[in-house]
């Protein structure tokens, strides 16, 4: 088979089942048909598992921003303008024309529709990063363990964040402000890209990558932020505003690509970061080891690789026990 476009009938059938399961469109009759098909031939079960795996793999690639890597195509169809790598080149006509329903929520996110408020809940489970396209052409990328609810209303676009970290790429629409509520803080946008971090105890940090954002908390006057501005609003204590370099802003968004920058952190801090992404915990009992510093950008999905790198850098011992990775002095 020299032509990759040719696929065998079994793989095609398995792909069809996987896509139907993924879309959640199976009724009980379909479920029975799937079970029968899987049971009919031992090869079917494997082909189906493989198709499900591949489908999940491509979902993850999409969540990690594969669309930005796709080489541009000869404009053979009018739709090609909407698939250009530029993130906000999404054609509005396309979205408004195609989206008859309230929200076009991505397949990638676990979606729950609250019919009373017309809002949709998007969740990124532990260990996953999810990018979801919204009906208005905006996109939300959720870091692991983040949940937001999205309400697209005629006069405003409203996102409520309960905890976690999310990046927003907002399609310009002056008539319909984009409002993010993170704890006690409200962030109002016209069209931009910005990052919101909300900690478990209510500390909020907003970093603007592009455009301008207005941040308001309680009754204090709104603060206007421009690209590169970062503002930290602790639950208790003074507000800190700083100007970041482009490199620093990039590093803050690394998790969207499945990476994180651990430069300058102690091993104890790094272990806490990994706990957000993986059930395999890094345990450091020795306080002297815990205080050692590390540097570098690491894959969020690979705590073991990180532990090995740290062990090499500081001449430590790595031991593994079930779900834990133990770092100790030699």
């Amino acid at each position, binding site marked *: *088979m*020299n*032509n*990759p*476009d*040719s*696929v*065998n*009938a079994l*793989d*095609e059938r398995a*792909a069809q089942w*996987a*896509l139907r399961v993924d*879309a959640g469109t199976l009724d009980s009759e379909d*479920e029975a048909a799937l*079970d029968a098909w899987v049971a009919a031939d*031992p090869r079917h*079960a*494997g082909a189906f*598992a*493989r*198709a*499900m*795996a*591949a489908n999940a*793999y*491509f979902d*993850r690639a*999409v969540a990690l921003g*594969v*669309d930005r*890597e*796709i*080489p541009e*195509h000869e404009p053979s*169809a009018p*739709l090609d303008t*909407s*698939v250009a790598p530029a993130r906000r080149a999404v054609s509005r006509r*396309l979205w408004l*024309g*195609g989206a008859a*329903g309230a929200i*076009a929520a991505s*397949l990638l996110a676990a979606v729950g529709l609250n019919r009373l408020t017309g809002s949709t809940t998007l969740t990124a489970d532990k260990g996953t990063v999810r990018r*979801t396209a919204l009906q208005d052409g905006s996109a939300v990328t959720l870091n692991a363990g983040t949940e937001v609810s999205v309400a697209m209303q005629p006069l405003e676009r409203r996102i409520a964040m309960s905890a976690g970290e999310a990046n927003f790429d907002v399609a310009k629409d002056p008539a319909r402000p984009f409002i993010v509520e993170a704890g006690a803080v409200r962030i109002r946008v016209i069209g931009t890209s910005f990052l919101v971090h909300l900690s478990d105890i209510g500390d909020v940090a907003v970093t603007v990558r592009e455009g301008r954002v207005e941040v308001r908390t309680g009754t204090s006057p709104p603060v206007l932020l421009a690209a590169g501005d970062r503002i930290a609003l602790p639950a208790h204590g003074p507000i800190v505003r700083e100007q970041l370099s482009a490199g620093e802003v990039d590093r803050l968004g690394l998790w969207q*690509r*499945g*990476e994180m920058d651990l430069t300058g952190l102690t091993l104890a801090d790094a272990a806490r970061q990994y706990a957000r992404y993986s059930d*395999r915990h890094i345990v450091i009992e020795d306080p002297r080891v815990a205080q050692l510093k590390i540097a570098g*950008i*690491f*894959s969020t*999905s*690979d705590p*073991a*690789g990180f532990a*090995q790198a740290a062990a090499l850098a500081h001449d430590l011992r790595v031991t593994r026990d079930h*779900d834990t990775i133990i770092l100790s002095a030699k």
Partner: protein
Amino acid sequence: MSFSRERAAWLGRNVFPHEAALRQWLGARAASAGLEVDDVVQETYAILASIDNVDHIRNARTYMFEVAKSVVLQSLRRARIVTIDVQANAQVLDIPEDAPSPERVVADRQELSQVAAAIAALPDRCREVFTLRKIQGLSQRQVADTLGIAQSTVEKHMVKALAILTNTIGRGGNGRNAASSPRDQRNDSETGEQSRQRERA
């Protein structure tokens, strides 16, 4: 469905990226044991999908190779006649070392551009449908409305796109590592012809 969405995600994240390497490793070994690489790969997936718990698996790549190896060995044991060649091969079923390293980060980036190139290389209509459905997150119905085609046609293009992408990535780029049994070739040409007919229709 016999396994959860979480398991599918786990397989997609930890197993599927290594399928091409597994096929390459299996290549000669499976053939000399009289096995189809495709069959071993499928059985490996079936086993990984059906085991109760994957939380204990530290290195999924090694685990996948171990499972594939046991599939090969089991069928060797079932076979009545074992040739000397096969026995020799059973001894060299050593699994290649591949310790995970932070350098994976770079590999992941390369992997992403490989996936991007595979998407770009899809037939035009498949690529359009895949982009609208997966990347932009439109529903099947919305894609049908946008492109002015039937929902069943959207499904056909999606199925084809996923199957092509699965083979492109899973078989290591361009199908070089694929088992080229007569059965596969027959199926391939049939399906290819059928889908071309569909496109003309």
